[in-house]
């Protein structure tokens, strides 16, 4: 047995249990592992809170005890996020037309909308799992929004080509405005859904929910805007997600700051 394999045993070994024979043999020969096992055996040193404090906590909790309705399941929230996203994209396509969709080739359409759908699903799952404390994450919620922003840059750069564009800024600003027009109401609806959960890390969930709202704006633009210039899409379409993610992050930071101020005031009273 190697020290690396021994790590698994050390992690799961508690002071009152005996080591498996193979691990015991290794510990007898390896000074580092032996000392580590001994040092860790002192970890669970029977510290307990005072009975008086526990009584105080119980009394405070029982005094304000009322039945509560548990948070709906993740599936219900995922369905709600999906319905909101689809409704906004369909509404945008209905009101603005589908010239962008028509301008795209079959391959471009498949790649772009597959990437957008996959990104939206990943972000929605991450947001829903963050609504209740202790959710399981197969992808780090910290890295996911950054990863999706990067993935979309790669997709846009791979699928579109640079073309001449006479009114880069005015056309772009119009697209940015359109994208945000659809992203902001979606973000508002998302925030209503999120208000039912316990948000432990508002900045993280803000960035993810903002990113999701931005993806909706980007999807509306891809359906509506016939401009296939790579720079136009990279700056003005992708910019919608970036702005929305930053907006969500900033709102999350504001929520965190307000909470902190609140708890600081309470502690002074």
């Amino acid at each position, binding site marked *: 047995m190697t*020290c*690396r*394999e021994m*790590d*698994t045993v*050390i*992690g*799961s070994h*508690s002071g009152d249990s005996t080591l498996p024979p193979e691990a015991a043999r290794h510990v007898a020969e390896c*000074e*580092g*592992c032996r*000392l*580590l096992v*001994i*040092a*860790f*055996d*002192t*970890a*669970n040193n029977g*510290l*307990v*809170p005072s009975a008086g*404090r*526990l009584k*105080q*906590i*119980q009394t*405070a*909790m*029982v005094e304000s*005890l*009322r*039945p*509560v309705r*548990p*948070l709906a*399941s*993740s599936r219900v929230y995922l369905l709600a996020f999906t319905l909101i996203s689809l409704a906004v994209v369909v509404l945008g396509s209905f009101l603005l037309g589908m010239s962008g969709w028509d301008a795209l080739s079959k391959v471009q359409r498949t790649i772009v909308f597959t990437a957008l759908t996959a990104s939206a699903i990943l972000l929605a799952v991450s947001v829903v799992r*963050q*609504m*209740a*404390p*202790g*959710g*399981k*994450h197969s*992808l*780090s*919620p*910290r890295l996911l929004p950054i990863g999706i922003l990067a993935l979309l840059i790669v997709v846009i750069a791979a699928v579109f080509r640079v073309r001449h564009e006479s009114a880069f800024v005015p056309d772009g600003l119009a697209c940015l405005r359109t994208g945000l027009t659809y992203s902001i109401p979606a973000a508002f609806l998302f925030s209503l859904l999120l208000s039912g*959960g*316990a948000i*432990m*890390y508002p900045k*993280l969930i803000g960035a993810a929910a903002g990113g999701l709202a931005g993806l909706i704006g980007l999807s509306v633009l891809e359906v509506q805007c016939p401009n296939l210039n790579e720079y136009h899409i990279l700056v003005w379409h992708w910019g919608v997600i970036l702005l929305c993610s930053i907006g969500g992050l900033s709102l999350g930071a504001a929520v965190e700051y307000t909470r*902190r101020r609140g*708890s*600081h005031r309470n502690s002074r009273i």
Partner: protein
Amino acid sequence: MQLEARPSAFPDADLEHLMARYQQADPAAVAALVERLSPQLYRFFAGQLGSKADAEDMLQDTWLRIHRVRHTYRAGHPVLPWVHTIARRVRVDNYRKRYRISSREMGVDVLPECPVHNGETNLLPSFEELVAVLPESQREVVTMLKVDGLSLEEIARVTSSTTGAVRQKAHRAYERLRNLLEGVPKCPERTLTAQPAPQGVTQ
């Protein structure tokens, strides 16, 4: 040997049942939950702070916060990661509050007393002294593994991370501690606590 297969400190099905009764406003469930989970939460705070009074305050804060967000517990989900995520958040908030206060205070250095050493166990630094040399993220993982008895998967849920990332942190921490312990002098000069890692709190 899979670390993830290790049973939790409490039978979780039982805790899940208690949580469900707590959500239905059963006072007996409140008492049972507080009694069963408080020692573990207390060690979670005391193990990283060292101050028992602060640990008790944070324990109380944690229960009040749990009470406020008890509706967010979903039936059938593991209770320990849910509780520890809230406790971790309380610790982060408390750290910030303490930092704000301490930044306005003048520190007075007090040299730690040398403990009396009786045998091999006492020649080694205590668990708290030992993990103090680790970076915060590794210290947190080791404390949750060894003091709170959480599994790697549970820690991954608490830290909004992946099991692989937590396993990696634990391996790095053990490697570092092994190297340090092999170099521990026989005379107790508290070498390990001479320059502890910054006591920051990771999110």
